[in-house]
């Protein structure tokens, strides 16, 4: 029962992935005769954007507008991303709350007061504009909300079903989700943190595991147009910082002793190890951040690069190769979604375990 549900979920995700990747690309590139730049296309897909671009180019493009929220010198400034009329080169100037704003490469700049048009240096960076603090609901932020809502709906309804079944036997959705929860508890938290202390960290570990996993899966669904949230360094950095904060706050005397005055080694070694251990404290969350970001982004880049082959060679004949390899990579990526969520969670648990370990020398 559970296995078959899992299989059907897997296959529907897979089907969506295959059926829409090509579709999105094909529509995107149609009509224009300019030279196809795979690097730009890939980066465009991997990076964040203001608005959900569906199809079309330039003024013909169809996209779902999203709110732009900026913190400028004049205070909070909000307008919809549709105000830029799909312009991404800084030509369209939007006036709002006494400021003039342009969008260049999905970044929003505020023009200096005396400027009427944006000017660029050799590296194509605007010279007469500043970047205001941008709290816009970009497509990644939207996917963030959607994934959080989905998790709440899934797990709260699963939790409710326990109250309904009198004997505490999981039914329906809970029957599918419970093994995953038990997996995090028995395979991640218990062995890494230890029987006596793992309970305190369970909510955090479960939340990051499912939050990362669901966003990894969302990143693979191309109809969401590459909402690559878990492949965005801001997302991975934030979660890594949370792990770092929890590790540091739960560090006991033994943990700090291991960092500043390593027991069991000669004094010169203690002095030598201290800076290394202090660096290690920060390297751990940084490695978490880079690992998740790089793995997910790399997967997307490979799939998009394989698809780009069709447009680089300008022939449909290469399509079977591209589709075949993309399918192969996508299947691997489906496994990677779970593996990366697992690795992030198990390493977080390992760090908590190290921070709370009692001395046993």
């Amino acid at each position, binding site marked *: 029962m559970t296995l078959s549900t899992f299989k059907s979920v897997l296959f529907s995700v897979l089907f969506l992935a295959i059926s829409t990747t090509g579709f999105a690309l094909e529509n995107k590139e149609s009509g224009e005769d300019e030279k196809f730049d795979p690097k730009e296309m890939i*980066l465009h897909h*991997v*990076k*964040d954007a203001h608005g959900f671009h569906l199809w079309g180019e330039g003024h013909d493009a169809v996209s779902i507008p999203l709110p732009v*929220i900026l913190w400028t010198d004049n205070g909070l400034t909000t307008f919809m991303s549709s105000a830029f009329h799909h312009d991404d080169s800084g030509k369209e100037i939007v006036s709002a709350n006494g400021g003039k704003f342009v969008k260049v*490469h999905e*970044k929003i700049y505020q023009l200096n007061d005396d400027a009427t048009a944006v000017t660029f240096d050799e590296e194509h960076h605007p010279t007469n504009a500043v970047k205001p*603090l*941008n*709290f*816009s*609901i*970009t497509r*990644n*932020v939207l996917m*963030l*909300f959607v994934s*959080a809502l989905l*998790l*709440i709906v899934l*797990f*709260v309804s*699963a*939790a*409710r079903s*326990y*109250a309904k079944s009198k004997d*505490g*036997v*999981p039914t329906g959705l*809970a029957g599918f*989700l*419970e093994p995953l*929860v*038990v997996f995090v*508890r028995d395979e991640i938290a218990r062995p890494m943190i230890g029987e006596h202390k793992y309970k305190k960290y*369970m*909510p*955090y570990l*479960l*939340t990051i595991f499912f*939050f990362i996993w669901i966003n990894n899966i969302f990143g693979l669904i191309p109809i969401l147009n590459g909402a690559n949230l878990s492949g*965005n*360094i*801001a*997302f991975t*950095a*934030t*979660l890594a910082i*949370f792990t770092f904060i929890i590790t540091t706050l739960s560090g006991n005397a033994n943990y700090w002793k291991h960092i500043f005055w390593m027991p069991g080694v000669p004094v010169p070694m203690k002095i030598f190890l201290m800076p290394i251990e202090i660096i290690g404290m920060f390297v751990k969350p940084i490695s978490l951040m880079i690992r998740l*970001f790089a793995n997910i*982004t790399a997967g997307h880049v490979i799939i998009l690069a394989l698809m780009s082959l069709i447009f680089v060679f300008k022939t449909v004949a290469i399509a079977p190769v591209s589709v075949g390899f993309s399918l192969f990579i996508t299947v691997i990526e489906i496994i990677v979604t779970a593996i990366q969520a697992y690795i992030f969670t198990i390493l977080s648990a390992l760090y908590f375990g190290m921070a709370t370990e009692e001395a046993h020398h």
Partner: protein
Amino acid sequence: MDLITPGIGLVFWTAVTFLILLFILRKFAWKPILGAVSDREEGIKDALASAEKARLEMQNLQADNERILKEARVERETMLKEAREIKAKMIADAKEEAQAQASKMIEQAQTAIESEKKSAMAELKNHVAGLSVEIAEKVVRDELSNKDKQLKLVETMLGEATLN
């Protein structure tokens, strides 16, 4: 370079969303789910323990039964043995008694026969004595004339009588 520069907006929204998500899920999802799971696990553990206890009890009971059965069997054996012994003894006793009784009866019979014989012999002797006297009377009457003949006859008759 954009790719590896965290955007402040996304960091902000991620932090806010994650904290809210963590709070909501902790309260409304993880607590009930983990609670239900651990309750069930406790239940299973208890059930297993009680099953094990029941099994041990059953084993004890079985052992008891076996012991009782064994004892009963031994008791039956002894009883049978005793009964056999009693039977044999009874038969032997009866035989002995019968033997004694028989030999006693034979003895009595012999004694009776002996006494009967003796009395019969005595009677016979008396009778013979009577007869002898009668005969002697007759002889004496006949033979008194002839003294020699008389004496010879008496002598002969007496000799014959002692032979009996």
